[in-house]
């Protein structure tokens, strides 16, 4: 896959960085001239993945969240959100809509939102090692 542009950043898992992360990714994706809806979809998906690192991966400590973005062929933005937190025992179960370990204030819909708003979602995780989420979205030709 030809890489046309890229960025990477790492941020501490503080909730104030949720907005920072999604706005930064949106600014990166802006070079593909996305519609307002496409930008909103990307921001929402990134917010889900980053929030999961903060809430689930590092529940009682501040860890590091690693985010990379690439622009690849065919107007596709590819993002990776990775943590070195607690990991997910059963990824398939975690991705089921409404599944949550987060108690009553969480809907269990973060992965469902990512899947609905992006074209590609892949989650790999190892218990005790961390989780990585890869997201891709093709930006429409105008």
């Amino acid at each position, binding site marked *: 896959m030809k890489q046309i542009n890229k960025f990477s950043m790492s941020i501490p898992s503080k*909730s*104030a960085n*949720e*907005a920072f992360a*999604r706005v930064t990714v949106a600014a990166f994706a802006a070079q593909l001239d996305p519609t*307002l*809806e496409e930008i*909103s979809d990307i*921001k*929402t998906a990134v*917010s*889900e993945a980053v*929030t999961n690192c*903060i*809430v689930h991966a590092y529940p009682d400590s501040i860890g590091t969240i690693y985010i990379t973005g690439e622009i690849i062929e065919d107007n596709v933005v590819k993002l990776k959100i990775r943590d070195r937190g607690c990991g997910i025992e059963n990824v398939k179960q975690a991705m089921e809509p409404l599944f949550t370990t987060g108690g*009553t*204030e*969480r*809907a269990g*819909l*973060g992965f*469902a*939102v990512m899947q*609905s708003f992006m074209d590609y979602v892949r989650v790999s995780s190892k218990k005790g090692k961390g989780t990585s989420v890869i997201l891709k979205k093709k930006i429409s030709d105008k």
Partner: protein
Amino acid sequence: MKINSTGEVLTVYLEGEIDHHSAKSIREEIDTAVEFNMPSLLILDFSGVTFMDSSGIGLVMGRFKTLQKSGAKLNLSNLPPNIYKVMKLAGIDRLANIDKGA
């Protein structure tokens, strides 16, 4: 955040971005107002909301459950298109009355 109570109806005008970072204080403000006013209808007005992710869904579902205990109803009004898209995905339209913004 503006809150308006007229007897049975409590209206909360949400503002800005609803994510995990902001949800806690929004939740506390809504819950305090609900406990104090004991409305039979809570209207959450989203016209001033610019961003919402699944933390907002959790917020709405949580309020729905508390209202349900006292038999009160929930309305979501003036949803911008991006917010409506998230609510729709979550099936919130089966729990609460939703009206989209203009």
